[in-house]
């Protein structure tokens, strides 16, 4: 009888363990009905030191040869829900087996190779220039997406966490005796335009700290799997509130406009594209950088 540490207390059980020290890996504790895991690697250690018993391979072969018969005997004997479960399991196994066999058969039969024609055909004058960076794939993928109308409103982050005002702003106490509290400091990352000058201290209701201002974002194109660091042009929409949009607050889920002119994209009319929308995917105030995904939904 196998017993695990569930009954370790008590001298009687200790004596019992001394007699039968090695519980097998597959054995189940008869007391707590939990699989018993061997403590430490003593089995492997023993095999390393003394080797296996001489008829080990023979016994293994016989056991596997007998396995089918045993399984059949069990299957014939079982009734009720247990039989149902077992049959479902064996049926799944059989399907898997047949699939594997079929795959092996197909491997041996010669077939017309249809996959040999590589994708992305190029004219001869571009064939040797494959290494040149081709941001054009970006706009192609965008156009493909545009065709699929269903994808029109799919944004990388469809839902955003609501941010309460007291998390967004910190109240600053002002006045000689610090009794006034009309001043707020934005505690999230912000984008402040190029020509912005702060208002006089008396007038400035919202303070956007310099340490949380950002000018560039790491923009990923999900289909191209490439990331570019691009200058931010503006905050298009902060889903939390239009006031945050106005303040240029960038929280997770905010749509920003980035400058893609260095990627060399063009419209169908043959004009250069320079602004594109992207959605912020991280919490910039925690990470110290802005990560965003190019956003097809706001293309139009």
């Amino acid at each position, binding site marked *: 009888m196998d017993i695990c540490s569930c009954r370790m207390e008590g001298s009687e059980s200790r004596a019992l363990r001394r007699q039968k020290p090695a519980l097998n890996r597959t054995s189940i504790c008869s007391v707590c009905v939990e699989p018993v895991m061997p403590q430490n690697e003593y089995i492997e250690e023993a095999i390393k030191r003394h080797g296996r018993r001489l008829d080990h391979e023979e016994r293994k072969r016989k056991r596997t040869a007998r396995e089918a018969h045993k399984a059949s005997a069990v299957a014939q004997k079982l009734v009720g829900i247990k039989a149902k479960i077992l049959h479902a399991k064996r049926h799944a196994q059989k399907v898997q087996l047949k699939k594997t066999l079929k795959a092996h058969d197909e491997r041996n039969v010669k077939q017309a190779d249809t996959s040999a024609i590589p994708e992305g055909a190029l*004219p001869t004058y571009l064939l040797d220039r494959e290494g040149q960076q081709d941001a054009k794939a970006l706009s192609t993928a965008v*156009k493909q997406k545009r065709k699929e109308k269903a994808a029109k409103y799919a944004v990388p982050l469809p839902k955003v966490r609501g941010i309460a005002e007291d998390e967004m702003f910190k109240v600053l106490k002002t006045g000689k005796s610090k009794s006034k509290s009309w001043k707020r400091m934005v505690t999230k990352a912000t984008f402040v335009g190029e020509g912005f000058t702060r208002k006089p201290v008396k007038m400035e209701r919202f303070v956007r700290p310099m340490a949380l201002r950002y000018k560039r974002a790491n923009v990923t194109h999900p289909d191209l799997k490439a990331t570019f660091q691009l200058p931010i042009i503006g905050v298009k929409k902060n889903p939390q509130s239009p006031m945050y949009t106005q303040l240029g607050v960038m929280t997770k889920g905010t749509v920003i406009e980035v400058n893609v002119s260095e990627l*060399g994209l063009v419209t169908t009319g043959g004009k250069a594209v320079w602004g594109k929308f992207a959605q912020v995917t991280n919490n910039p105030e925690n990470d110290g950088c802005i990560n965003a995904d190019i956003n097809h939904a706001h293309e139009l």
Partner: protein
Amino acid sequence: MATLLPPPKRAKIYHENSQIQAPLTPPVQSAPMIVVQFVSEDEETLLGPAVNLPADFSREGLEALANKQSGQEDEPVPFQFHVRLPESATDDKHSGAPTRLVVSTSLLQDVLAHPSKAFTPEDVLKVYCSPQSVFRVRPATRCSSTLAGHGASILCAAFSPTGRLLATGSGDTTARLWDLNTELPSHTLAGHKGWVLCVEWEARERKLATGGHDGQVRIWDPKSGKPLGDALKGHTKWITSLAWEPIHINAKNPRVASSSKDNTVRVWSTVTRLSEFVLGGHTASVNIVRWGGGGPGKNGVLYTASSDRSVRVWDADNGKVVYILKDHAHWVTTLALNTDFVLRTGPYDHMGKEPTSDEEALALALARYESITASTPELLISGSDDHTLFLWSVFGVETATGQPKPSARLTGHQRQVSHVGFSPDGRWAASAGFDNCLRVWDGRTGKYVATLRGHVAPVYRLAWSADSRLLVSASKDSTVKIWNLKTYKLHTDLPGHSDEVYCVDFVADKIVSGGRDQTVKIWKN
């Protein structure tokens, strides 16, 4: 008794104002008299004595005068008139500006009133006259049809010599034939096992050759759309370009040459379907092959350009190297001959007459070839990744060493040159570059003429209209643009493709373009 006078009536106010403004209109100026000397552009000879004209003499009047001076009163020829700017006006400060002024209305408006102030009415104006074709191609303005069918990017397009059929090759391993009268698909040519990279028409429209990424060349019958035999196998890598033997040398069974990435060029006989000889010698990919009509015995020569920085000239009779031109510093990617157009269209001129026999076709093609080479020998322009082009007169000028020297080096592109093409009359050459612009050069001297700017991405291909008056370019920025060669500005923008345009061709007044968006577009007037 002083009474206030009532204010004048409104109508009267207006009347008074108009009376004040009337003298502001400029007085009629009498145009100054100028001395004009007509010079023929071909031979730089004077057409006749200098004439004294009013400066606002119209272009049509100039044309009549020039025709009279050159003794062609009975059959007047349309002329293009231009005045060359002096060197001082085209110095570094104005680099990129055109070097000549084209007269489109009158000398007063186009030359004397030019902002550079290079000419005054006291000068003797040397007006260069270049005869133009008697027919005129109407510039395309609209997309007449968008033909879907190809399952992958369209990599090459070529009109047949008569312009009745169009062949396109695509990344879906098929080539397609389109009927241009109805603008409908006519045949699908399936057989290649890789992308179809190049299509080339025999100049008598009896056969079509296609070359694929699988290293095979296939010959097709365009009437039935059936293959003529199996593939011509031999190349170990993909085919980069194809060239047919000119009709004026072999009207019966022209051979076809194919250049390949595997550093060789093979010349195939379409009768025996065997490779007659293999031109080995290049040490890197051969990018382009052209079959010219010149050569020592006028029996045709093959020009090949390769990534090993050399251009080689081969004798088409025995496949021996005639010259090796090693002036480029980087891959040579494109070649153009000033006879390209007549070699490509063979016996068919703009009248569209069908030759009845091989002999007649040969005679017609020879006459057309000689009309081009009468004034200038066969010229070659090679464009390279070193941002320059060289103009060669390979068999025209004898040199002491026996090795031809380039007649001109055409510099100005700021990135690699992607394509170069001679106008059908050989007077102009245009080159397209990865620096988003096209440059126009004088086709005989290689002098810089103008830059055509307007594309916002690399320009991939260009094509000339049959009358040499229009130039069309295809670019990565998904547009096709038609350029005006009078003002050197954009004539018509043809947007419509949704992705890069890889190929463009121009025949009669139809333009065809195809690209990555898998559709063929036909543009018409």
